[in-house]
């Protein structure tokens, strides 16, 4: 009697299983790599109506974040400045420069400059700036080195895992309150950071919420 199944069928199931495993494994890897804010949101750098440079205004001129984002330490929302803030200087400096035309128009008409929003958490997340910056969490932890950016882009994922990583171990991130707006500040060493971080957490009774209702209402 001839063989019903040719010889290659002996290893066929193995091959099929190997291919399936490879395929499923790759799909899983692909999803973990791509279906996360680390890929979908990080690096978002829209074209703004005015080519405003944080590197020039913050690093070179030495402006403090609060000169423009004035309410960051008083409210949950960190405002993007109105045209009048720019005109404090630009009524004198570059007062007829084309690059600043939208700012002057807005200043005269009262219509807002259409800045494109970059950092945006979903509306079911209730984020609050003032509690963070007044407790020694610097802008750099969540926005990256803004002071070196010619154009702002999203540097951190701002995902739930990102928030919780700090909320579980705030002592790794908290710095002295007068260094919050100095984005170049570095702790002397990792050990020094933990030591002073633990001191701040203890002295100020820092308790970042880890329960769902802390951030979702």
């Amino acid at each position: 009697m001839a063989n019903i199944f040719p010889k290659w069928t002996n290893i066929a199931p193995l091959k099929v299983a190997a291919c399936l495993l490879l395929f499923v494994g790759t799909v899983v890897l692909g999803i973990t790599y791509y279906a996360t804010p680390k890929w979908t949101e990080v690096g978002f750098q829209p074209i703004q109506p005015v080519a405003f440079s944080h590197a020039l205004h913050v690093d070179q001129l030495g402006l403090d974040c609060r000169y423009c984002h004035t309410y960051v330490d008083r409210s949950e929302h960190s405002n993007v400045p109105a045209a009048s803030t720019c005109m404090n200087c630009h009524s004198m400096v570059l007062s007829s420069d084309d690059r600043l035309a939208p700012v002057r128009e807005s200043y005269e008409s009262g219509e807002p400059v259409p800045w494109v929003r970059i950092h945006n958490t979903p509306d079911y997340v209730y984020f609050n700036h003032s509690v963070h910056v007044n407790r020694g969490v610097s802008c750099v932890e969540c926005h990256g080195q803004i002071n070196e950016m010619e154009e702002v882009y999203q540097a951190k994922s701002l995902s739930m895992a990102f928030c919780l990583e700090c909320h579980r171990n705030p002592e790794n991130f908290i710095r002295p309150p007068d260094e919050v707006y100095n984005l170049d500040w570095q702790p002397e060493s990792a050990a020094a950071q933990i030591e002073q971080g633990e001191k701040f957490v203890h002295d100020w009774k820092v308790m970042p919420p880890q329960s769902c209702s802390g951030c979702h209402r």
Partner: protein
Amino acid sequence: MRYFIGIWIFLIIAVVSLLGFRGSKSKDQPLYVFPDMDWQAKYLPQGENKFFADGRNDRPMVPGTAGRGYGNQLASVFSADYTDPVSENPPLYSGKDDEGEWMRGFPVEVNDEFMLLGQQKYDIFCAVCHGASGDGNGVVKQYEGATLIASLLQERLMAMPEGEIFNTITHGKLNMGAYGMKLRPDERWAVVAYVRALQLASSASVDDVPEQFKSELGL
């Protein structure tokens, strides 16, 4: 098997070249795969709103009306025994005394903490133009067009009543913009106090330094 591996490698290369790597810059709005309740019909600060002609959520004050507190004071603003803070200490808000003249002196107590507040706010909002010591040589001065920036150490400003300097901060003056929206009234008075300290320091001599600080300064 060989075909499968070939197709597999091709697909990986295709996907990676289409989607790129994490962290690469992009001008396009982020992709929201399941935008379930991400964007809700609610008013957020500085948000966009098609309902109003000017397209924004934040409503400006209606002309001819007087504000009664702010949103974050809702409970106290609508309580029966609410008193308008302005009526309790008018000079704090207007810079003028009872006779309608610019006030001399301060409507609040001046202490150490108050001066430190003034220093902090001065360094944020004024030093870029008027310089850390008030001499009018801030960083902006070196740029074309900004030569108008005044020194705060002139005789005229030293003699000027505190209330008038307060008014300059609140509403601006000539080429200087207004800072009333950025600083609370008590913060503006603190800045005035710090400006007075800078003026005093500019005309002080070694003898004015208190004994306990002399060694620190190497005198």
